[in-house]
């Protein structure tokens, strides 16, 4: 991609107005301002509120007791809290496995869809259904399908001989920590793979045809074309898909709530669920907000690393 907009005339000519010198930046900011302004105005107060109150010990449902400023007290107690670390680990496990699977399967699906010879319209519309269903309903539906006695999945698993004490799935699916965690990952993957596939497909559809024609002329095989042409060009779409999904997955709540309520024994309690309990059941908002600050900070760090890694070198071009 060429550089087109050069930074105005050579600086040598001296007195050019502020506007002329910073024309590019100002034009850019003009485009960005509406969205940025909107976000700052709407989210400004809540974000400031939540950070400030994370330094308090206060109960939202007990306004008369007031708020006591305890500085980093909430943060300190969280970092020493076993349940908090457990929920962090659980969330990390879910995010890593789910997003990885969603990406791989989504990419596969997108590549297939791109080359489909017939019925693409129908396929795409139908494939999106899992992503369109209400998360709370998705959780309930999978809970029903995974019920050990009446669930469809359990039934067929047992018919295939995969359950029971010697089987792959020992004991209750949702009542055992490992399989419960796996079940949540499976549900999330089922729900969001179409989302990934759609973004990647749209990305594939937007790629310029020249490099592909060139590759065909050079006699590249399908795999070579994929590795050396498709994937590099798909980088922007991949970045978006991954980051959005990761940020989303770190907030997973509805599915866990409907399927296991965080059990068994907190094995599937994600940070979001833990925060929900702290902030919305116990209304201990100081602690809940501190959790939010910690988790969001971690998310920012993770996403920033990925962002710089994947998208960083594009910027340099």
């Amino acid at each position, binding site marked *: 991609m060429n550089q087109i907009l050069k930074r105005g005339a050579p600086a040598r000519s001296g007195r050019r107005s502020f506007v002329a010198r910073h024309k590019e930046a100002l034009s850019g900011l003009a485009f960005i301002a509406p969205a940025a302004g909107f976000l700052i105005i709407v989210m400004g107060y809540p974000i400031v509120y939540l950070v400030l109150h994370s330094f308090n010990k206060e109960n939202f449902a007990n*306004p008369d*007791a007031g708020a006591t400023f305890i500085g980093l007290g909430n943060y300190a107690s969280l970092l020493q809290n076993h349940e908090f670390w457990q929920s962090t680990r659980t969330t990390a496990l879910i995010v890593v496995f789910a997003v990885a699977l969603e990406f791989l399967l989504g990419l596969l699906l997108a590549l297939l869809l791109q080359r489909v010879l017939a019925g693409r319209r129908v396929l795409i519309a139908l494939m999106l259904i899992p992503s369109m269903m209400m998360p709370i309903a998705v959780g309930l539906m999978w809970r029903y399908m995974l019920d050990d*006695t009446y669930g469809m999945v359990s039934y067929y698993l047992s018919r295939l001989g995969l359950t029971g004490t010697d089987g792959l799935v020992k*004991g209750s699916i949702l009542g055992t920590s490992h399989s419960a965690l796996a079940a949540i990952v499976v549900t999330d993957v089922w729900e969001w793979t179409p989302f990934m596939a759609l973004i990647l497909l749209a990305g594939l559809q937007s790629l310029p045809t020249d490099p592909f024609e060139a590759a065909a002329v050079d006699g590249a095989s399908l795999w070579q074309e994929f590795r050396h042409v498709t994937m590099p060009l798909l980088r922007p779409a991949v970045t978006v898909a991954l980051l959005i999904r990761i940020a989303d997955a770190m907030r997973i709540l509805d599915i866990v709530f409907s399927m296991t309520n965080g059990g*068994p024994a*907190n094995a599937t309690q994600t940070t979001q669920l833990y925060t929900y309990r702290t902030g919305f*059941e*116990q209304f201990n908002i100081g602690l809940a907000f501190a959790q939010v600050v910690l988790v969001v900070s971690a998310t920012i760090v993770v996403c920033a690393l990925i962002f710089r890694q994947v998208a960083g070198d594009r910027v340099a071009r």
Partner: protein
Amino acid sequence: MSSPTSLVRVTIVATAIGLIAAACSSGGSDSSSPSGASGSAAAPSGEITFLVSSTPTVDNLIKLIPDFTAQTGIKVNVANIDYDAMTQKETLDLRSKTGQYDAFWVEGTFLPRYVGQLNGLEPIAEYATSQGVDLPTSDLASTLVDNFSVDGTLYAMPFENTLMMSAVRDDIYQQGGLQPATTLPDYLSNVQALNDPPTVYGTEIMGQQGEPVFYEWVNWLWGEGGDLFDSAGTPTLDTPEAIKATDDLLTLAKSAPAGVANYSWDQAATSFATGQVSTAVLFSDQTPGLLDPSNSKVIGKWSYVPFPGDKATAFGGYAWAMNASSSNKPATLAFIKWATSAEVSKQLVPDGSSPPQTSVQTDATLQAKYPWLKAEAEASSRAIVPIKNTAYFDLVDALSTDLNAALTGSMTPDEAMADAQSKWEEILASQ
């Protein structure tokens, strides 16, 4: 619009509309005929908002509301939402004192927060007296009144008397030549004896962490002679009785279907209703499901018996409370009085409600037709709210996680109770 004729026409039409509108609104406000209550200046009128969560009994009540509106002219806007959402909306509303909801659902466990912390409920009995309205609290068991009182002041009128009952399959017991147990050891041996997988299991338990396993377990705790707190308010979880109760849960689980570690009240009821188990401890608000042919395979084959022993059992009932910031208290009172009256209660019984009024519970005709009332009448007097503390959720979360851990084998009962004890001490200390 400039010609005089059209201007005249418009004025005539506008005046006509104005007159009609005035007539309609004034018609609405005095349509209610004055009742016996002479204390207040005018009969209650206007509009109120009623926040509930859906249950079969609530749904049936909502169907009856048009009768109430016809009698009194009071319009009732019903907000029928998700249970967890409802409790949060109540808290938010009471905290912001906006009075968005005039009447709403409360349980005994809510009172420490709604009254003690938020000070958002109107003491309903006192208010009624001040308005010259009679609330029939004498028709309620004293434990029931206590469940919804704080320091002796009543804050809500009971609507559904949800008790924890032992449900048994008469046909299976008969076949097995057994009688429903009256003691805990007999209960355990019955369950074991009737366990015949995969045709039918002995029992099911609500094992999911959170309120389900807590409510399942607390009855056993009391049955074994233990308690959650002593008279000084110190937790007593690290006791032989509590450990035995946890052991009992594990014993029950051996005669239960796989997956009970994740059963909440819904699965528990489904399990019994689909004929999967011979015995179950259910909340009595599950009765409608057991009577509904689209839901139940055991119609006519089950009955309620009191939970074995003569100790306390957990109370899970709900009542209607009045918002202290309500902008229409007279109408709200009228509605609450109507909704919790014996007359309305009698209309709800056929579909499986658990009436709070002693007169309805012990009514001979009703008992003959609806046999579950008999067992409920007995259980009603010993049903109490297990925890009345502002840290309710904290406490239940901590204990239930340990119970669930014991159930799934990651902790022994001793370890679980010791851990729960220390957690409870910590929670109470930080209050």
